[in-house]
């Protein structure tokens, strides 16, 4: 007997694809622009400018790659996260290993973040580099083993879906904007104010939108791995019920990968938030609970 795939949501898939299209268009445009500049310098026989453009074409991606690599450890440091030794917090590590076995992922490294906010997050571009971190406050809250398992499963679903990679990819247009703004000479700022600001704000919105979608998807992944959506529901209620004090989020690429987002200030409005509101997440999880194990 075939079982129905869990939480197949065509609407969500279409919206994700639609949000990705402008981002892809940005990459295409950037590539074309670069090619046009290189060809232009060649046609003008302006070798200095050609050299500059060629250097940028090679150096830009290298710098970006370095930024991405650094962002992993920067994020962990910003969250005051300490990677656990093998015999540290054995119960937590054993739990993470079990959950990753079910998800068919190599067991990620586990880190403990000092924070007053109960939260969990993951960093890493792929499953081999992944680090799953939980905050000290999360362990202090009296989550049951099944609830903690659900939280870990949500993070591992981010890892399995390569959300670190996807969100990094999606954040590049916004990142380029902030690089222009902070550039040493004034020309970056002028370019930003004249041309780039609409692109910047649109790409920020797209980033948040995709991040919200991927939270739903990670919730679904957690339900798949644990086989018990209701455990994630009660865990979310326990840890998102109280407002988080302080912010443990680091670089652009990881702030989206916490299990609960910060819903203070203007992030209270869904459009400005990288996490969906709690009631919507609970609603979807309840739907999954009804669908779970149904025949195809």
């Amino acid at each position: 007997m075939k079982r129905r795939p869990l939480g197949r949501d065509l609407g969500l898939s279409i919206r994700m694809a639609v949000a990705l299209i402008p981002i892809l268009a940005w990459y295409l445009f950037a590539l074309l622009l670069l090619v046009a500049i290189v060809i232009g310098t060649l046609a003008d026989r302006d070798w200095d400018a050609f050299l500059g453009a060629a250097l940028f074409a090679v150096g830009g991606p290298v710098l970006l790659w370095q930024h991405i690599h650094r962002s992993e450890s920067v994020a962990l440091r910003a969250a005051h996260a300490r990677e656990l030794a093998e015999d540290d917090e054995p119960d937590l590590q054993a739990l993470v290993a079990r959950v990753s076995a079910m998800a068919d992922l190599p067991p990620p490294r586990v880190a403990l973040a000092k924070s007053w906010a109960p939260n969990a997050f993951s960093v890493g571009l792929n499953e081999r580099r992944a680090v799953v971190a939980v905050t000290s406050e999360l362990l202090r809250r009296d989550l049951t083993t099944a609830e903690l398992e659900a939280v870990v499963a949500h993070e591992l679903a981010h890892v399995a879906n390569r959300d670190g990679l996807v969100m990094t990819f999606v954040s590049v247009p916004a990142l380029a904007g902030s690089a222009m703004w902070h550039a040493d000479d004034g020309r970056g700022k002028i370019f930003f104010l004249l041309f780039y600001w609409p692109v910047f704000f649109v790409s920020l919105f797209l980033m948040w939108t995709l991040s919200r979608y991927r939270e739903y998807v990670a919730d679904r992944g957690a339900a798949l791995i644990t086989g018990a959506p209701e455990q994630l529901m009660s865990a979310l209620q326990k840890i998102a019920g109280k407002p988080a004090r302080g912010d443990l989020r680091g670089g652009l690429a990881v702030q989206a990968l916490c299990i609960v987002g910060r819903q203070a200030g203007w992030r209270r409005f869904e459009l400005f938030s990288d996490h969906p509101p709690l009631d919507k997440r609970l609603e979807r999880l309840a739907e999954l609970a009804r669908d779970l194990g149904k025949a195809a």
Partner: protein
Amino acid sequence: MGLRDVLFGRKRLKEAKRDALFALPSAAVSMEVELGLRPAGVGAVVFKPLSAGEFVRAENEMQELLDVAARESSSRIERRSDEYGYEWLIIRDEQFEDLVTTVHLVAGELAERGFGPQLLAAVTRFDGGKHPVYFVYGYKRGAFWPFVPTGERERDNAEELELKAKLEKELPIEADISMWFALYGLPI
């Protein structure tokens, strides 16, 4: 995993690969001859139950079927849950081949009812060394790995690697050592 999974997220757990389990009986013969490891007459299927009603019903049906299977094959089956919320169907049979057959039957019944992705592992125990040796068959991987626990959270990696070296000709052993998951505190 494909691009679609990256773009839209996984919607299913990996389906179980059940068939490579049958490499075990012949490997058991050489384990006994060459390594002095005897089957302890006990094995188990580990799976993750679903909280959904559908699953609970299927599980109950399966229980009846298992009782019948147990009566026919002289295996004894008991059920245990562990602290991580996994279910263990523990099978006892002095005949190693029958034991493996019953393990396969149990996993097959779960898969038949559409719960193959809930299967985590099949475990068999061997005695005769300093510590009990377990061979874990990972249903997600379709391969075996040795597990030699020496304490509450310790395992003998050297012994495990030696077992891999000696048995990898006969038994499909998981090549990626980081996927050799431990099952500490296992009830067999």
